[in-house]
């Protein structure tokens, strides 16, 4: 299963010294994201990726151990993003 962004191009993003406010017109909500969350979205906007791929990328970027706990945190945020409508799942062939 892959993850991809959902209407990323419509988001209004302000960078506050590597912290971000993101206005999402689809929901009318404003989100606060830290640097890692924003990196996740940007990465997924460039290409759909699996949980393992996203975790590996972020682990390198933020010099983290790509262990189970780290991957679990990333997964939680992906599901949270999904709930907010910022990302969506895509299956091979879909």
């Amino acid at each position, binding site marked *: 299963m892959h993850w991809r962004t959902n209407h990323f191009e419509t988001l209004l993003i302000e960078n506050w010294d590597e912290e971000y406010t993101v206005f999402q017109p689809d929901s009318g*909500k*404003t989100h606060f994201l830290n640097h890692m969350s924003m990196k996740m979205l940007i990465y997924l906007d460039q290409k759909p990726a699996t949980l393992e791929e996203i975790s590996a990328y972020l682990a390198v970027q933020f010099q983290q151990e790509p262990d189970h706990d780290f991957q679990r945190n990333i997964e939680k*945020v992906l599901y949270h993003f999904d709930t907010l409508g910022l990302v969506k799942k895509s299956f091979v062939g879909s």
Partner: protein
Amino acid sequence: MTEKRSHLQTETARQSLKASMDNIHKHKRRKLLKGTVAVPVVMTLYSGAALARTSNITGEADSIENAVFKDTINGPQLLCVFPDPMQTQIPGGPYDLGQFPQATLIQEPKIDLTASAETVLTSKMQQLEECHARGGIMISAVAYTSIMSKTGININPTW
């Protein structure tokens, strides 16, 4: 003079130290926020419109003295407001009165304003008990004014 200057220097040093400590605290808070960089963080700020939609939420007045009584020809009657039965209510409040708040006036026992303060208070408390028995709550004058300015309250005295 020397003593005065010494005092001034001490005060200046104290203020400087305080400013320095404030900066350290600010820096620590900032660092704490930034320190979460190893974990992705997402927080959603809810819009004013969303808050406005749920703004008929109120707690019960904290005292009978702050409750709203309507003056009628039969004396003051407690405004008894009903939490919206369609909403999930939290026991003890705050209560969601819904989009169209409903209320009634508690008519018994009658409140005789010529009676002693103690008797008046007792009558008011009895009206409150009656309101609670019907599933209603008393609200403060502030809450009443706020709700009236937004959606109004439908008062049906015969309930």
